[in-house]
Structure formats: structure tokens, C-alpha cells
């Protein structure tokens, strides 16, 4: 009787041991994946900041005005040259 119990317990022990090995292995794998993704998130954050910076630099009012004036031959709008329409008026 006691031999049987011992055998069952031994089998259980071995199974538990293997399960531990397996879960540890999986944990390491997932951890490495997590690290990799976090690194990527950081890189994307940096890229986003760079793009925001570029947007702000390229969208500078001074640059827009200069391009509009010289390259596109545009002139500022003045009220004298504007036809204002009001909704509901004849």
C-alpha cells in the first residue's frame, strides 16, 4: 500500500518539477519578448517626438510666410479685398 502511494507521489513530484522547468522557460521567453516590445515602444516615442519636432520646424509661421511670398507669389488678405457673406442676409 505504502509503496503505491510513494510511487504516485514520486510521479507527481517529477511532473511538478517538469512543469516548473517548462513555466520558467516560458516566463523567460515572454520576458524577453516584453523587453523587446518595451524597447520598441521607447524607440517609437523618440520617433514620434522627432516627427513632432519636424512638424513644428517645418510648420513655422516664418517659413510658411516666406514660401507663400516668394515661391507662391501670395499676398496677405485684407478686408478691402474680401467679400463678406452673412447667412440669412439678402
Amino acid at each position: 500500500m505504502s509503496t503505491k502511494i510513494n510511487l504516485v507521489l514520486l510521479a507527481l513530484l517529477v511532473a511538478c518539477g517538469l512543469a516548473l522547468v517548462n513555466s520558467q522557460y516560458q516566463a523567460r521567453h515572454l520576458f524577453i519578448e516584453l523587453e523587446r516590445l518595451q524597447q520598441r515602444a521607447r524607440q517609437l516615442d523618440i520617433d514620434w517626438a522627432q516627427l513632432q519636432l519636424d512638424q513644428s520646424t517645418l510648420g513655422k509661421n516664418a517659413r510658411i510666410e516666406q514660401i507663400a511670398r516668394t515661391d507662391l507669389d501670395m499676398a496677405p488678405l485684407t478686408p478691402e479685398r474680401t467679400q463678406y457673406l452673412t447667412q440669412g442676409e439678402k
Partner: protein
Amino acid sequence: MKRGANGSTGSRVAASKGISFTTSPVLAVRLPSWRSRVVLFVLFVAFAVLGVRALWLQGVSNEFLQKQGKSRYERTIELPATRGKIMDRNGQVLALSMPVKAVWAIPEDVLKSPPQKLRALAGLLDMSDAELRKKLDSDRTFVYLKRQVEMDVIEKIAKLDIEGIDTRKEYKRFYPQGEVMTHMVGFTNVEDAGQESMELAQQKTLVGTTGSRRVIKDRLGHIVEDIGLGKEPHDGKNLTLSVDSKIQYIAFTQLKAAVEKFKAKAGGAVVLDVHTGEVLALANYPSYNPNDRSKLTGAQLRNRVMTDTFEPGSTLKPFTVALAMDSGRVTPNTRIDTGSGRFTIADRTISDTKGHGVISVAQVIEMSSNIGTSKIALSMPSQEMWEMFTKVGFGQAPKFGFPGAVAGRVRPYKSWRPIEQATMSYGNGISVSLIQLARAYMMFARDGDTIPLSFQRVDELPPAQQVIKPKTAQAMREMLESVVSGEHGTAKQAQVAGYRVGGKTGTAYKVENGKYAMPRKYIGSFVGMAPMSSPRFIIAVMIDEPTTLAHFGGQVAAPTFAALAANALRAMNIPPDSAVTEIVVPADAEAEAM
């Protein structure tokens, strides 16, 4: 052989006949029995000591060894926090931190490398070979070669593969809007600490807290496990300013044009949102590029709008008149005799540009009569005037949350002599900053109440404080409009096509070392609002020491106001509130007093 065999047989026989080895009496040693017990005891004690020691190390005093063990495989990694971004009210980035690296060297090791490599390094670091060698000529083991080097350069330096060169991660702050926005945003130093303006004022919220984490590293240096004793890093909070990039740009370019046109020393302009108290633009000229501060001078750094006080001159008249109207002493139609243009109090004489004769209170403002304002002021107790100045913020420590903002100076009313009360009513003998002046005009633009200014975007309106009656504010707005569009107005050049605008000019002599500067130096100013039908902006412009063409506020500051207002109104899509007509400004616009 035979003998040998016999011999051996014989000895075996003899042994078997004798006694066994263990009981051989020859070998029996006569020793006292306690000796063996002593040995046994000593051995037992030795084992016991080992046991106790093992127990001690394992169970009781185990910290030290565990720590030593951990330090063999555990590492603490610093997690840096990024400084918060600064954005304008529409989310456009005004300041942003990017990771860069500092290049440092161990001079002894670096100097061993071949000269052509060092030359290449100097080239990459943007310095001459001699400069680099001067830096390396040091006894120290750690020398910064250059800080805040951008990543692409770092990669090239790494490719040179020079021994003794290493890098350290840090951040560099970029200001894409450059000189246009710098007096609003400020800048940080190489240690990422705010030095000026909002970068300094909001240092605590902008700066993050660095974190750390404990990890287990394997032989190759890869992180294999997080032990979870870390501290999360917290990035700095982003800051959304009240400033509008478009209006700021308009203000800066118009101000720059004016300062250059009148060959002035400097200038300042500020635009406020009447409804929310937000500062939409704050421009100073001369300015500087915050991305390259190597040639920065004090004059460029100076935030004149906030930190310079000046005698405002006539821009202060509306406050005296508003007080008199609010207390029922005068109405806009009350007649006041300004005489021939000269008025003597005690031994001092106040003068107007010319004799206006008997004019109404409204005309006192329109023509900017010093005598008229003085007479109104002298009909009131000095305490009431002082209270009015204090209520609108003059002489009060500003609560803007902006570094360097000054209080200006209003002397206690008990020491006012009549002549001083008179001159103060038209803005002499009192000093204010441009932002205080703009904020004070808020009560005219709103219906007699003021709200606190904000440099950050306002989502919830702050409670307003009533200063004068709504009716008084309305009447004052009409007078301010007549200054610009009236027949005798002093600020005809402030007119804007398509919009009704109003405001008040001011010209003051500059005070240097406690006296009026000789020869005369002027500050021309204009504070106004637009559109008059429902004021949206308060715009204040100040031109410091104009030297050519003109020096009156109506001539130097008013046109700048007009250009600024016209562009800002258009940029904000505010519909025109007056018939669109071509404005003809008379060539010799009326001069104003002082």
C-alpha cells in the same frame, strides 16, 4: 623457491598460534582513558562551532552574504525620465527634449591613439585639433569632450573606435519656434533645468522623476528577469501654454518691423484674450535664438513686457476718468475748462500741446488733455485714486506665475502732494510694466470686471472681480474708440480697415538714475482693444527709445497696434464689425500731450 614457500608456511603457522593483532599485548598502549574522551570532546566542540557558524550565516546574519551573492548577478538600471513638452494652445510643439549623448574621455587612453583618428574626432565634435588636445591635456581621468551631441554624430564617433572614448545618455531641448517664442517659453541649461520664463516657472511639473529597476543579467549581459524592486520613472508633465503661435508670430514680426523702422532700442507687445485672461502673445525685440545661445546678450534676454517698468504716460488717463465717472462726479458730457493749455499748481505748470478751451470729459480722453485729467483728478481724494490703481494691479506683486514679473511702483497716497496727484492722473510719477497695463485695460474691454491672467491654456473660467460699473466701462469704450476714430483723436494711425478699434496712446520721458534722461528719451506706447462691438483682444505695444521719424505713442506704437490687430483679427476669423472703407490717415496726425 622451495625454501621460500616453506618459510611462508611457517610464519602463517606461527601467527595462527599466537594472538590476534588487535589484542596483541605488545601493541597495547597504556594510556589513560580520559585522553580519548578529550579528543572526542574537542572534535565534538569543533563540529558544534561549525554548526553554529553555519546556522549563524544561514539563519541569523544572512544579509551580507545574500547581498554579495546578488551583486554577482543582479544589476540596477537607471530609467531616465523625459522632460515634458511645451505646446501652444493648438498643440504645436514649442519645446521638446530629444535623447542625445555626452562624449567623455579618459585622456591618458585617448592620447595613445593615432593622430589622424584624433583629427577625425575633433572634426566630428566640431572643434579644432588644438582645442581637442587642450581638453585632453588634463590630469583627471574623466573629461567631457562635448555635451549634447546628436545621435548620428555619436554613431560616426563609435565607428572611429578610439580607446578611452565613451558616451553618457542625456537630453537636449529643442525649440523649433526659435526667437519668435523664446520670451514666452524660455530655455533650459545643459543639466535640463529651466533657466527662463515658463521653463523656469514650471520646472517642478516639467521635470520628471527618474526611476530604477533591479534585474538579473546573464553572462552575455542580457536581461533575463525583472526582480520587481524597481521604481517607475515618471516623465515630466506636458505643458500647454495660452500662447497662440500664429498671433505670436504676427506680434513678433510687426514689433520687429516697428523697432527697425523707428531705430528704437527695443520694443514689447502683448496680446490678451478678453474672455479668458489668457496671454495669446508676448513678444520682445531684440530677441535671441534659444537653440544657439553662444552669443546671448543681456539686452536680448530681457523680457521687457514683464520685467521693465516705465512711466506709462497718457495710457493711464482712462483710469482717472473712469473713477470720476464711476463715483458719479462727472459724466462723459461734463464740461471741463482746460484753458489756454497751461495750468499751474503750486509752483509747477502742467501743459497741453495746445489750448483746447472748454471741452467735454469724452474729449479730454480723445485729445489726451493733461490739464483736463488733472482737474478731474484733483476733484477726488487721493485715497480713491490709489485704491483704483491698486485694484487694477499697479504697484502690486503680480501673481502671473512668471519669473521676473515686477510690481511697478505706486507711492502710498498719504505722501501725495496735489501736483503729484495731478501728474499721476496722466501717468507720470508712477511706474508699471506693459503686461500690467494690458491687464488693467481688461476692465474696460469686459464690463467693468477683471480676471486673472494666465500663461497656460484656460479650460475653466476664473471668477471675475468687479472694479467699475458696467455702464462706466461701456462709456469708456466709446471714448477709447473716439481716440482712434474721433475727429481730434490722437491715435488715428491705430485704425484698422473693417474693424472698430479703440485704445489710448501714451508717450513718456524715460527716467534714468531717478531723473528724466537728458536729452529726452521717449517710450511710446499704445494699449487698445478690438473689435469694439464685442472686444476680443487687448493689445499693448511699447516702443522704447524711438530715435528717428517720430516718438509719440500715436505715431510709433499705434501703427504697430493696427497692423497687429488687423492680422490677429483675420487670423482668428473674427468677422468685421464696421463698413470696409479705405482709411486715409492725415499726414500730420494730431500730436498728443506727453
